């Protein structure tokens, strides 16, 4: 993914579900370079909870055995895009936990390209999306495993919850594998809240919004498990869920 001065179109795979009117006002998107030296560990928590449109493009390079823990909470922007390119050297480890919470006609997207360039690197991506109204939430995630990157372990877990039938979730996990010894588990699911669970909670006295919030809170928390700032991220997510419900 390169940032050029030319505005992308819907034919660009990585922008297929973008809000182009909003994108035009944000273009070109600045590249934010992050380099983690060999053996170092870093983390970053991004909370986009303002109402104005925002687009970010992180370019992360991990040295040998470096670790990077990235968490994203996108909850509020009319248009919110977080694109992440990651390149992992030998034995490096990358974690992404992202939650997208949207309502109205908001459009949120997480677009990742994770390249395992050398052997024995691990990556894990967990994305949880909650959509109400006419919101659109997308995850486009490409994992590349280069020649010789044996021992790769790359995982993608992508789930979206639709609170209204009018909302749209897009999920496109992709794998490009050129090595032999590779573990690449990926799961994708779009669903609705479990009606049995909701009735069970309501039968104990929770109002319908409280019951939904409790179930969604648990759903979203999966993206933040073990993160530095886990409580802060969960609390911000709960505040947004309460506003959406």
């Amino acid at each position, binding site marked *: 993914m390169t940032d050029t001065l030319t505005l992308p179109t819907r034919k660009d795979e990585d922008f297929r579900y973008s809000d182009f009117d909003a994108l035009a006002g944000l273009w070109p998107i600045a590249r934010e370079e992050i380099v983690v030296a060999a053996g170092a560990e870093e983390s970053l928590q991004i909370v986009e909870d303002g109402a104005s449109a925002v687009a970010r493009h992180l370019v992360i390079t991990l040295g040998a055995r470096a670790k990077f823990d990235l968490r994203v909470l996108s909850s509020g922007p009319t248009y919110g895009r977080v694109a992440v390119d990651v390149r992992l050297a030998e034995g490096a480890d990358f974690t992404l936990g992202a939650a997208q919470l949207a309502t109205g006609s908001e459009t949120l997207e997480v677009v990742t390209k994770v390249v395992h360039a050398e052997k024995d690197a691990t990556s894990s991506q967990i994305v949880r999306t909650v959509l109400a109204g006419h919101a659109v939430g997308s995850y486009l995630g490409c994992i590349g495993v280069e020649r010789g990157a044996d021992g790769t372990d790359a995982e993608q877990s992508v789930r979206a919850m639709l609170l209204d039938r009018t909302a749209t979730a897009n999920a496109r996990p992709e794998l490009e594998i050129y090595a032999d010894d590779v573990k690449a588990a990926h799961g994708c699911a779009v669903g609705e809240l479990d009606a049995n669970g909701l*009735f*069970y909670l309501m039968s*104990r*006295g929770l*109002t319908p919004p*409280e019951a939904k919030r409790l*179930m969604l809170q*648990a*759903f979203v928390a999966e993206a933040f498990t073990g993160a530095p700032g886990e409580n802060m991220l969960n609390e911000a997510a709960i505040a947004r869920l309460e506003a959406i419900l």
Partner: protein
Amino acid sequence: MTMLKIDNLQANVADKPILKGLSLTINPGEIHAIMGPNGAGKSTLGYTLGGRPGYDVTGGSVDFLGQDLLELEPHERAAAGLFLGFQYPVEIPGVSFVQFLREAANAQRKGRGEEPLSGGEFLKLAREKAGLLRMDMDMLKRPVNVGFSGGEKKRAEMVQMGILDPKLAILDETDSGLDIDALRICGEGINSIMRAPDKAVLLITHYQRLLDYVKPDFVHVLAAGRIVKSGGPELALQLEEEGYEAVVA
């Protein structure tokens, strides 16, 4: 005041009539058992009284402590003092019992215009009720019903009942899936939580065995959506000996 007065209740599930004119009156201080063969409408009665979506009332009325029960949403029924014990308690990953029950207890208190319980007050109450059901407090810190055995789920239902302190408990096959010890513990739990002059219980069950521990004042036989026979505890023993077919005929 009457606790529960069901009059000529009719209900459909997926457009199919299941309850076909069921009438039953429960007074405070009473324990009633409803027994009946598979498909008689026992669980439908429980879910209809609990207000589960998909259980459509097509006729009749239900008065609960002077309120029209059928007008209330499920959470309003709970706040009014109704507790539904599930035959198959639902697993809710990621949500701990402690968090869920504290929110539920406080939502009910709010619905009744009472002050919420503090964290400390709630934990004390939870510990007491868990102890009653011989359940380790650590289990209540786990996600709701996830990884619980059948017996643990039923005991957890009774712990919830103890914490929420309802006026009327409708217990749908609380005895199914229980071993002998768990059956006794649940039975004793029901007695200590619900045996009171201002409370009442409706036990829905296939078998006599729970009634050895929780002595009913009245036993009713439900068949094809109606109560076809009522009597005292001896009716349950007669059913156990002779079977539903003989007694209902």
